[in-house]
């Protein structure tokens, strides 16, 4: 039988007080997780994550270096903020949508020069380089014991693209703070100013000048809505379901993407296009619909197994361009010691093709004798084709001093395109692989 001595009562009260204090923070941490402002170390007020991403598709593909800094803070009145600053340096060659040929192909670059694709080579514009900076911030404050307001702002700038975003939302705790509902609405206004101007849709690429379009810029409006519910299941698990609806209107083309015009033998031909312009090359600029309604639902489960933690997410996506996709994402955190962890990652993704995705256009079928394209929309952008991909990754984290932490992570990507009916074997899309290295250092004060 336990004795009621003063020391044990004091110890019990101290323990209870600490637990209550910790769990007050726990509730705040839960709320902030919904607004992507999780508390890295609940006992601290400010934290800084500094990281860099290096992404490579190999020597003849895209290379990206992306340094980023993320600062989060929480004030005494429970107001919280986070700020994300990033910059990207992108170089390398990107596929322009044209089809492989068993002859050398010549294209006009955005600057009016030329670039070539050799026999059997996938055409890529190889003088591609881009720099991008972005800033994203949010601020949240309590309006009652169970309600928080969230305000968001976003801006990014690159040579040919500018984006401005504003938005906000509400987080509501209920069910004894075991459930949190979040509603969020953000809007973006984007300006596109392509190098070489805006190409006129379905007109040919020209020899000597990239395109004949008179416009230099166009705009896109995006409205993004999120509705989510987070539920604590047990003291060691929680789940979140989320609905996202995203509507884009305006200029949705990729101004650098073309479609090859092929004859009945799958060789390039300008037979029709030269009636539009005598300088026509056998490629036409793509045309996409000017609106897109995209939806996704995801469910995410977080489960603690005696110190190890599993994150599993499934997402189903669909849109009115008839793309649908399934994504499975599994992350695990093996606790090696109190200060070290190993984090494997597996991801599987599969998508169907957009209804207007076309491998190429056929002269006499899709393009008439006068060079007019007979379709409402068409794009050969490989990202609108049907494919599946997987990611295998491994991370290692180590804690220094009291709270500083460093993470290093390597990921391998592989993308495999579905075989396309009626397309020659040598003209099928090549599979794509890439490596990503990420390093992050975090500290708190």
């Amino acid at each position, binding site marked *: 039988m336990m004795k009621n001595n003063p020391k044990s009562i004091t110890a019990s009260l101290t323990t209870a007080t600490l*637990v209550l204090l*910790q*769990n007050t923070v*726990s*509730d705040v*941490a*839960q709320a902030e*997780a*919904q607004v*992507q402002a999780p508390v*890295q170390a*609940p006992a601290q007020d400010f934290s800084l994550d500094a*990281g860099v991403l290096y992404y490579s598709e190999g020597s003849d593909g895209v290379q990206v270096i992306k340094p*980023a800094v*993320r600062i989060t803070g929480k004030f005494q009145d429970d107001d919280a903020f986070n700020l*994300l600053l990033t910059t990207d340096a*992108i170089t390398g060659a990107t596929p322009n949508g044209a089809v492989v040929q068993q002859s050398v192909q010549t294209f006009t670059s955005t600057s009016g020069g030329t670039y070539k694709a050799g026999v059997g080579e996938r055409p890529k514009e190889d003088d591609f380089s*881009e720099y*991008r900076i*972005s800033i*994203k911030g949010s601020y949240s404050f309590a309006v009652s014991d169970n309600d928080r307001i969230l305000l968001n702002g*976003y801006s*990014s700038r*690159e040579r040919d*693209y500018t*984006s*401005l975003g504003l938005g906000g939302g509400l987080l509501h705790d209920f*069910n004894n*703070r*075991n*459930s949190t509902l979040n509603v969020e609405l*953000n809007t973006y206004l*984007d300006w596109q100013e392509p190098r070489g101007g805006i190409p006129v849709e379905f007109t040919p690429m020209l020899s000597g000048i990239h395109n004949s379009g008179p416009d230099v810029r166009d705009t*896109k409006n*995006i409205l*993004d809505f*999120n509705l989510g*519910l987070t539920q604590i*299941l047990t*003291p060691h698990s*929680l*789940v979140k*379901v989320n609905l*996202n609806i995203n509507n884009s209107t305006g200029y949705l083309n990729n101004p650098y993407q073309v479609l090859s015009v092929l004859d009945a033998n799958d060789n390039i031909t300008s037979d029709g296009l030269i009636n539009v312009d005598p300088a026509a090359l056998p490629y036409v600029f793509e045309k996409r619909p000017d609106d897109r309604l*995209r939806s996704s639902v995801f*469910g*995410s489960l*977080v489960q*603690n197994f005696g110190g190890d*933690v599993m*994150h599993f*997410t499934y997402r*189903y996506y669909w849109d009115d361009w008839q793309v*649908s996709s399934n*994504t499975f994402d599994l992350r695990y*955190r093996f606790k090696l010691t109190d200060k070290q962890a190993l984090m494997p990652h597996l991801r599987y993704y599969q*998508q169907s093709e957009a209804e207007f995705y076309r491998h190429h256009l056929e002269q006499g079928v899709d393009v008439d004798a006068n060079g007019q394209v007979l379709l409402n929309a068409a794009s050969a952008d490989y990202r609108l084709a049907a494919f599946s991909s997987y990611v295998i990754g491994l991370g290692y984290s180590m804690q220094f001093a009291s709270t500083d932490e460093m993470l290093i*992570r390597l*990921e391998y990507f592989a993308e495999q395109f579905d075989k396309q009916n009626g397309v020659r074997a040598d003209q099928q899309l090549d599979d794509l692989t890439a490596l990503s290295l990420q390093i*992050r250092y975090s500290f708190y004060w």
Partner: protein
Amino acid sequence: MNTGKTILLIGLMAMLQACASSQVQVWEKGVLARSDMQIVPDPLIYYFDEHTYFSREASIGGTGAGGGGCGCN
């Protein structure tokens, strides 16, 4: 109705049931407060991941750690 939507509908129903029955007390939430137990446990790394996937795929939407306009796709 396709398989994906069916799975999510079943998940949503199970979650609503959990809402009604789950009553984890405040003093039981110590583990849940840990940063590695958040839906987005590492926002910077998730941001790197989501931006990479977004630039290669036709889909968007997820944990929300990425987002924002970008000329990459």
